[in-house]
């Protein structure tokens, strides 16, 4: 009984450390409401977005101060002034370990003004979206 208690305590500690690591490793973040104000969306990255390399970024969603875990999130983006989209097709998926929506495959091809659009579908809530504006140096 003691052994199993210890095991679960260690597991909980490990889990909380993982969560802590994710939250504190964000060096850059933007938070805004979706168009219909259904969600508060926080976009975080390990470092300020830059060109030429895959970005380590993730999203967290809140609805009425509650974290939303089961949403489907689709993303798109591009440079409106240059009439082109993202160089890759990034994928957004919920990670239980990180308790965040991990963005995989995100890359920027050049400096300048970029837009990242996130379309969000969650149960029992109207579909909503938001567009982040980024100025990449």
């Amino acid at each position: 009984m003691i052994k199993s208690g210890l095991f679960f305590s260690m597991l909980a500690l490990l889990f909380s450390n993982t969560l802590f690591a994710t939250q504190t490793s964000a060096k850059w973040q933007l938070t805004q409401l979706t168009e219909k104000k259904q969600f508060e969306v926080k976009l975080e990255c390990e470092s300020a977005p830059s060109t030429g390399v895959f970005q380590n970024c993730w999203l967290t969603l809140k609805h009425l101060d509650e974290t939303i875990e089961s949403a489907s999130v689709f993303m798109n983006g591009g440079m409106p002034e240059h009439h082109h989209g993202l160089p890759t097709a990034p994928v957004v998926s919920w990670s239980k370990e990180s308790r965040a929506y991990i963005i995989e495959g995100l890359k920027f091809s050049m400096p300048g003004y970029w837009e990242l659009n996130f379309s969000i579908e969650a149960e029992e809530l109207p579909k909503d979206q938001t567009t982040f504006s980024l100025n990449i140096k």
Partner: protein
Amino acid sequence: MFPHKAITSLLFAFIFFPLSSFAQNWTQSEIEKISSLSLKNLEYPVDPSNKYLNDPAVISFGKALFNDTRLSSNKKISCAICHIESSAFTDNRNLAVGLRQGFRNTPSLLNAAQHNWFFADGAKDNLWAQVLSSIENPAEQNFSRVELLHFIASDQKLINQYELLFNNRFPSYTEVDQLPIKAGPNARLAQLISWKKLTKEQKDITNRVFVDIGKAIAAYVSTLKSEPIRFDLFAEDLALNGKSEILNDSEQRGLKLFIGAESGCANCHSGPLFSNKEFHNIGTGILAKDNGRSEIIESVIRDEFNCLGKYSDAKPDQCMELKYINRNKHSLSGAFKTSSLRGIKDTAPYMHDGRYMTLNEVMEHYKRMSKLPRQTDLATIDLSKEQQADIVNFLMSL
């Protein structure tokens, strides 16, 4: 002696100082941008799909094959015929000529391994697959993969070398004898039919040898790199002293324009290769003829020789470019890979199809952007003749 030396130094200063007053003023942000273009930022090429990349014996074998005209159907064409060492590994023709004329300009191989995608439209996601495509292409070496297997099988010394280098059993004489003389999936119809008649095992043993040969040549090509040039010395001097006279007045004005917002050149021509290695539509694609990236998305995903395929040495999570490939054909219509500008003075003609003989013509192309019939990723770059000349002078220093 000392007074004489001092007088000489003074005279030197009087004579040369007024002439060297062309040093431009640079902001810290500009100096950082220039520094980011320096060759010192170029990292050693990494290709997890090719485990032989750093094997000196395989590199040496690859170099021999790169120069071997026997790897062509007429025994006259090798990789080196179009990629001429004395011409920065290009051929200075508008369009490449192998067995017959192709439809693309021959790119330089210097720093080729630094790219994420190969061919102007990125039809291959690794260098060895690109090599193999050129060997089989009827317009280039026209040498099918089964012919290549017979070529090695005909020479016991080559067989021994193959088995030693790749730690891979070369197919037995019985297995080789059962194969047709010529066959390959990318060859002309008769050879394609012969290829389709082979068993799955026969195809696999042929592919294994073919891929190893491609990886050897790619390992050699990966060693071809630019040497530091005057621009790199300038960037270093500028970072140290805040000014430099290593580039002349016009070249420095050209560089300032090149990295500035007015031209926007460095948006795409960034990093030590002067290329962001991505695909952009600058109005050079021709619909129904050669429309660039949008035309090859499906084939690169299905390619048996891609990073995720069974002949790759990479783990799936090392194939990020392919895994997250942009499949939006509409947005990639007419897009080609940003050319590297390093060594550009030696690599005329320009653009993916060699349509321009000079950089002045390239500058005029960018000035005509708004008049092109199709929408492009770029607005017109409206520079004066003097500004264009300065940028061209800067580019010729690369």
